[in-house]
């Protein structure tokens, strides 16, 4: 842990193409920075020592935040967590994301930190990841070769590793409009009131009354090398079985999918226990009155 940052050259491009030119020019020696709340910490620890830091905050295009019926939510790469938190559509339609944002970092950090940064850090504990996984989000990736859309699960390849090439950057996160009756929650197991997730659970339910078309989704943070979605859940909840049995099956499906470890924050046993109870709590909160 150092007081000083390693030496680097600071760039503040005004357009995406200028940023991409810089990435292209410096190859692996450059890194992009949004809020810097992860990057600068890593740099002080010398976990990362980039020679060039490309600050994205000067690029106007990346600051856009829109919601359009049919199209969904588009969150530019420099949109801060607090801006998102105050955005009406997030609160009204993307409950789990709103829960996650409310319970992330603290007010000061949220004023700087971005959603794209949270995803690109690719921490297993990234709080925005599980909600975005249950909402089927995609990230828009730009490179000198053009733009492509990446399904969120394909972004994460390992602990703090992404599938992004050295000449690529995320320009926005797209979240499709969910069904009108959607309900979702994000619950977080923590050591104190402000903490990163020991276990995070995002749950989403839609079209509950139509068993064959029913949508139930679960995704987790801090239980595997990357945030994970448990795809089996959807199938499980379309079976014609009593509620209690469905929940049991969903919990075992989740436990099968995850691979929690013991670390300084929690033992593996406690994580397994939290996966169990938080999954049940989330589903109960969403379906309490309706099953």
């Amino acid at each position: 842990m150092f007081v000083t940052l390693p030496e680097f050259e600071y760039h503040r491009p005004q357009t995406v193409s200028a940023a991409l030119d810089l990435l292209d020019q410096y190859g692996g020696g450059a890194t992009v920075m949004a809020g810097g709340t992860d990057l600068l910490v890593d740099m002080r620890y010398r976990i990362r020592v980039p020679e060039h830091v490309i600050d994205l905050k000067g690029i106007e295009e990346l600051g856009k935040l829109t919601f359009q019926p049919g199209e969904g939510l588009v969150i530019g790469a420099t949109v801060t967590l607090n801006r998102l938190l105050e955005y009406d559509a997030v609160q009204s339609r993307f409950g789990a994301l709103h829960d996650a944002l409310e319970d992330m970092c603290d007010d000061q950090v949220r004023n700087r930190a971005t959603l794209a940064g949270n995803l690109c850090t690719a921490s297993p504990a990234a709080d925005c990841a599980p909600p975005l996984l249950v909402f089927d989000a995609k990230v828009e990736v730009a490179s000198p070769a053009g733009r492509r859309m990446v399904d969120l699960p394909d972004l994460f390849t390992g602990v703090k590793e992404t599938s992004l090439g050295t000449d690529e950057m995320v320009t926005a996160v797209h979240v499709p409009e969910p069904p009108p009756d959607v309900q979702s929650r994000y619950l977080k197991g923590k050591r104190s009131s402000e903490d990163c997730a020991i276990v995070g659970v995002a749950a989403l339910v839609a079209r509950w009354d139509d068993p064959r078309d029913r949508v139930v989704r679960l995704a987790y943070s801090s239980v595997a090398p990357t945030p994970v979605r448990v795809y089996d859940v959807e199938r499980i909840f379309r079976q014609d079985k009593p509620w209690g049995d469905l929940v049991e099956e969903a919990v075992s499906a989740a436990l099968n999918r995850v691979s929690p470890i013991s670390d300084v924050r929690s033992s593996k046993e406690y994580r397994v226990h939290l996966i169990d109870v938080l999954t049940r709590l989330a589903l109960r909160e969403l379906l309490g009155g309706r099953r």
Partner: protein
Amino acid sequence: MTKFKYVGRPVPRVDAMEKVTGSAVFTDDIELPGMLHTKLLRSPHPHARIVETRTDRAEAVEGVVSVVTGRDFPFKLGIYVGDRDVLATEKALWVGQPVAAVVAETEAIAEKAVQLIEVEYENLEAVFDARKAMEEDAPIIHERLGEYRTLPIFSPRPGTNIASVFTLKKGDIEKGFAEADLIVENEFSLPQVSHAYMETMCFIARHGADGNVEIWSSSQPPFIVRYLTSMSLDIPLSKIVVHAPYVGGGFGGKAGLNFEPLTVLLSKASGNRPVKLRLTREEHFTVAAIRPGLHATVKTGVKKDGRIVAEKIVYVFDAGANADYAVNVGRAAGYDAIGPYDIPNVEAESFTVYTNKLYATAFRGFGHMELHWAIERQRDIIAKKLGMDPIEFRAKNVLKPGISETGTGARLREDAANLEECLRRVGDALEWGKKPAKPKEPWKVRGKGLAVLMKGPAIPPNTASSAVVRFNEDASIELMVGTSEMGQGTLTSLTQMVAERLRVPMEKIRVASLRGTASTMYTWQTVGSRGLFMDGRAVLEANKDAESQIKQIASQVLHVSEEDLELAEEKVRVREEPWRSLTLAEVVMGYMYPGGNSIGGPVVGRGSYIATGLSVLDPDTGQGNPAVFETFGCQGAEVEVNVLTGQVEILKAFSAFDIGRAINPLLVEGQVYGGTVMASSIALFEQLIYQEGVLLNPHFLDYKIARMSDAPEDMVSISVENPQEDGPYGARGIGELTMIGMAAALGNAVSNALNIEIKDLPMTPENVWKAVTRQNPKLLERAKRYLKGE
């Protein structure tokens, strides 16, 4: 209601404006011309011999002024036992111990160069558990323990890892247990924790070519820093000046001596240029002193009617690698081992033990939060076994003014604090007889708990303070006291006391914010909740002295005797003929008659105080009187626990302390809120987690402390005021007290809520879940069934 104009009033702090506007000066704000910066190289091993250190690569870096190693500074430091190296000399004793330092033109250069120092180590067997360290075949951490300069009141055991042991013996323990109807024995524990004060430590020192030394330090006790630096480094006291700017929280961690001697020596080694050493938070976590951990074994004998007849206690304090200050923590916990109870037969041993971990020092409560965790959990467990109400059980056994004897055999004075009153007041506030309301979710449970507590200053018997009250031309006042301002607010209370007696408005009294050994009056240390009491007593003397000087002059001018004069409204006047008066401004610089003849001279009030009536405790039995006052109190809480996750939420927290008189009720409340939150944080979250001596959580990401959202929603300070005759305006100390009982109160509340017995801190969600799983699995099953909607 108070009959005073200033004392007893909730006046705002005198330093409030300075602090909220950011103009208050802390050590790190100070820059000196030509100042250099330093970085420390830390040991990666918990216990290793230093074979060789190569510094040439670091020395070659441009901008490096000097590189030093432990062997350059062969001095031993310490307040009570001189066991501390300036930099590790022969051996490194914990992961993080500084072994070398680089001084350079900038911090960045120092940081870069320090990585280039190469140290060859030979690893030695290490020991991390204090009780294992006491075993016969444990590796010895301080082989030279017998050679260290040690104050005679401590008893180190050379050849072992026991830095000191304190023994308390009263009555006949065997007879006591034989009389008991019920004997209860339990073990309790608390981990080492960090002070986590907001201001990380910072030091600046200049060792002049002429041998004069100047130190700026984020230190609680400038005078002790001067004294110990002089003694350890063999520099004449008169050549050292220590400046003490504002301190951003100390909690004991900035008591005694810290890195001042190192910084002085670095300046000397760097061409006499001033050197600044400032620690980052992460360095702090591995380099600076912490609070000891405790393992306690408590065995208690009680009669059926609830009388405690015998108690046998073993405290083992995990002091880490140095115990220079911690031996006194162990000692204080030893003589107060049984807490505020009247027990006829007592035997207690309190060990302070070395381990290869971070070293411990003073910490708010000085062993008392730790010991009360053990005995106040024990009291609840006993009450449950007896089928007695825990308040009644305590009321039966607590110390009572004028009647009871403490564990050290000191009879409580008639005007001592009234503990039973505090106990009842907290019980009432908690609506003790009433069941807590039902939580909203059926998988949550609520419980109430309380704990009583005591503490007096743990100080040498001859501890002293002094003060000067000096008038200016306009009859404004400079108040000069040595006590440090680290957030507690004592300077405000002392100012109130001056205003009260000398009848000068508070705005006209100034206490220098940058204080120090050359600019203020002597006080031993700002520790142990002693500041208001002892420095306060000195201020009262200074007031009296100033007043008599004023009256002397005025009596000549007004032709009345001094006894017939009084001070009022910035005047001195004849009591019976108040229209006959002089303004203070006419008097305090000396009075000039119309013809020019002058009498008197500048008024300078001088006051001194020394603790009296204290004894050196008996070395075999610990009997005697260790404290000038004891503050008693009770703290209680109501909690809600989520059985599924183990999360504890504090709904209400009440504290009642008999502080004699609240000189400033606002400051008392501030202390109570601060102490409550700090204690809750330690009770629920805090622990230094090691793996083979390596600290796994050296940062606030994983060393959790309470934030605002963790503070209890409902925090109340209940003031009980039975004045102590010799206290300033009847006051006793309060600072540390406010956190001593809260952890045990929370432990009792959580245990009651879950119908289990929590014996180890912290009560993290995971630890609570584990305890429920082990002790009351049915409760967890029931909660899970609710979840399924059954």
